[in-house]
């Protein structure tokens, strides 16, 4: 293995964003914990069983303590559910009575009996479907915990401050137990966006990059490494200049964040006075209580489908919807709201009873396509929104519009709903702006036709990248091809902005690009004047805007548009991000 003396960039897959600088610390692996087999006498059986019961009860105690600690954290509801399952596992007859029975039968030390039982169990797992395989991680998590309690513990290595924890595979309790004050990032060889460990890391705000090969890290244990959870890269042997750059970036993000939290009056305009609006993406009513929501100038994307459970979204009545929407509008203290109609299907999963298995859900009957095929369901929501709109300033947004024909079809349905309401003598808002989500290449390329007939655009960058590059970003082997910085994206963004300009249509951006400060200057330079992101990202984006010169941003975007490769674009964004911070 060559010792990398030079700065070395490892490209991984970002699972949780943020930047960390710290010392690498490798966790012992499951396989490392396999104990030697020792025969025991029948008179030792009781002692072994007692030892096993103590280990189980200590494990249970750990998990209960962990649950208690998590209950104080915001956003750790998911983590608590997972830990709850782990507690159930400790009571599983396979773990309790079966292992005890095997100790008596095999007359071996508890550790080896336990490992052989778990080994047999894992073999059963090996034959089943992939989606369930992931759950094996949870089982391993619990068995590692039990084994740790059984071991006559070798002295635990001291966890360095700002530890960057690496493990071949991270299990949920690794991320759940991590204290934000000691652990600064996670790295692993395996793991995906939907893994439980990643979910918990995101909830706690700890950066996490997966798909990092263990071999590359062998020689740098204890060394300082940089983890960039935004770009998904790890930098080994960072040069003093790189360290300085990341240190500054981290500090400025942190201090700005602190400052901004106390400065909600901060106007979001560039250095040279160009106003850029920052709105919030909202999923649930509780998001409205998020402290950073106060900084938003409006709700740029209200994902209405999140208000209802998958089960009752198809049965919820117009009245129930109406009341929820009115409550929502009142709770926002009259901020403008862009209501995106139910966006179902694709990665959100169609759960309708009539739904059939789709070979290719991302290209299937999702979003507006689904609504147009279920007109009664679609109209019920439209009626509720139009009626509620009397209470505030509401716009309608339609997801995954393909082209003008489809948008005209949508408008026709809205018109029918309005006519019905008029006939029935029901009060509703007569002029509700209607916008298109631009998230398909076909819509981007024909944006000028859409601009003529709709009132505004909202660019969904996640889907636009997915459909432009034909990449499933959760694909374990292809995720690195998911490149928002791809030149084709930048050209399309430019095209969309230019298509909207002659008709003075507002263009906002609401995908993940909107919440990544590395893209802010470029997006402003491309002509985006409205960003919409989750409340927790608002402070950073607002601060980034305040440091940008609008004039420079335009020149910068022109220069970046000349680049031919995504790698070149990423490199220049990074360089720019560091020099401006």
């Amino acid at each position, binding site marked *: 293995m060559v010792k990398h003396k030079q700065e070395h960039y490892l490209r991984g897959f970002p699972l949780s964003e943020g930047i960390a600088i710290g010392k690498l610390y490798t966790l012992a692996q499951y396989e490392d914990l396999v104990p030697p087999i020792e025969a025991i006498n029948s008179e030792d059986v009781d002692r072994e069983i007692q030892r096993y019961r103590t280990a189980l009860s200590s494990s249970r105690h750990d998990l209960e303590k962990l649950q208690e600690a998590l209950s104080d954290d915001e956003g750790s509801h998911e983590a608590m*559910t*997972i830990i*709850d*399952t782990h507690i*159930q*596992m400790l009571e*599983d*007859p*396979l*773990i309790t009575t079966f292992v005890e029975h095997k100790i008596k039968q095999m007359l071996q030390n508890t550790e080896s009996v336990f490992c052989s039982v778990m080994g047999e*169990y894992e073999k*059963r*797992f090996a034959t*089943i*479907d992939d*989606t*369930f395989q992931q*759950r094996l991680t*949870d*089982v391993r998590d619990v068995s590692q915990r039990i084994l740790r309690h059984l071991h006559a513990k070798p002295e635990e290595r001291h966890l360095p401050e700002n530890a960057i924890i690496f493990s071949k595979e991270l299990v949920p309790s690794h991320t759940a137990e991590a204290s934000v004050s000691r652990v600064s990032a996670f790295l692993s060889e395996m793991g995906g966006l939907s893994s439980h460990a990643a979910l918990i890391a995101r909830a706690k705000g700890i950066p996490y990059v997966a798909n990092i090969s263990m071999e590359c890290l062998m020689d740098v244990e204890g060394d300082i490494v940089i983890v960039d959870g935004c770009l998904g890269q790890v930098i080994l042997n960072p040069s003093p200049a790189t360290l300085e750059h990341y240190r500054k970036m981290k500090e400025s993000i942190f201090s700005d964040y602190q400052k901004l939290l106390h400065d909600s009056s901060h106007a979001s305009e560039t250095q040279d006075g160009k106003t850029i609006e920052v709105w919030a993406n909202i999923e649930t009513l509780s998001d409205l209580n998020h402290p950073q929501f106060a900084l938003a100038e409006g709700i740029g994307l209200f994902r209405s489908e999140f208000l209802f*459970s*998958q*089960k009752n979204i198809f049965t919820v009545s117009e009245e129930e919807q109406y009341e929820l929407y009115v409550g929502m509008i009142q709770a926002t203290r009259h901020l403008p709201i862009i209501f995106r109609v139910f966006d179902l299907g694709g990665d959100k*999963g169609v*759960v309708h009873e009539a739904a059939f298995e789709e070979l290719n859900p991302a290209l299937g009957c999702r979003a507006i396509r689904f609504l147009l095929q279920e007109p009664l369901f679609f109209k019920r929501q439209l009626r509720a929104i139009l009626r509620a709109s009397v209470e505030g300033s509401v716009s309608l947004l339609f997801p995954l519009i393909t082209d003008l024909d489809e948008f005209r079809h949508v408008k026709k349905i809205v018109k029918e709903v309005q006519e019905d309401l008029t006939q029935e003598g029901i009060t509703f808002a007569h002029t509700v702006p209607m916008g298109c989500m631009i998230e398909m290449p076909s819509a981007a390329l024909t944006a000028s036709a859409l601009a003529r007939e709709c009132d505004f655009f909202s660019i969904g960058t996640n889907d636009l990248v997915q459909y432009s590059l034909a990449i499933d970003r959760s694909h374990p082997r292809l995720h690195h091809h998911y490149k928002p910085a791809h030149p084709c994206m930048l050209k399309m963004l430019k095209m969309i902005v230019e298509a909207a300009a002659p008709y003075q249509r507002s263009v906002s951006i609401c995908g993940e690009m909107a919440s990544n400060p590395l893209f802010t200057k470029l997006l402003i330079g491309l002509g985006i004047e409205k960003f919409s992101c989750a409340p927790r990202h608002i402070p950073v984006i607002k601060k980034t805007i305040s440091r940008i010169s609008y004039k420079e941003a335009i020149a910068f975007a022109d220069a970046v548009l000349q680049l031919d490769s995504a790698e070149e674009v990423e490199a220049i964004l990074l360089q720019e991000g560091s020099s401006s911070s």
Partner: protein
Amino acid sequence: MRLTAVAKVRNRLGLHIRPATAIVKMLQGFRSQVYFTVRGQTINAKSIMSLLVLAAQKNAKINIVVEGEDAEIVMEKLLKGFENEFGE
């Protein structure tokens, strides 16, 4: 008493970790033995680890056997649970 019934998994992701946990918790405190059979494989439904290894997908049909003095109430709760996707 021994009762049998067939239930369909409605949960989108099948009997994954959340509904499996809900089933085990629901059965706690009842005396009956509960067995699930899918594709010829029979497991003890009071064991979370066995439920996970069962890997029942959405729309899978599960043969339920409940045996014991409180079988009736257990079966009723289970069928209701499958119906409402175990609260998911």
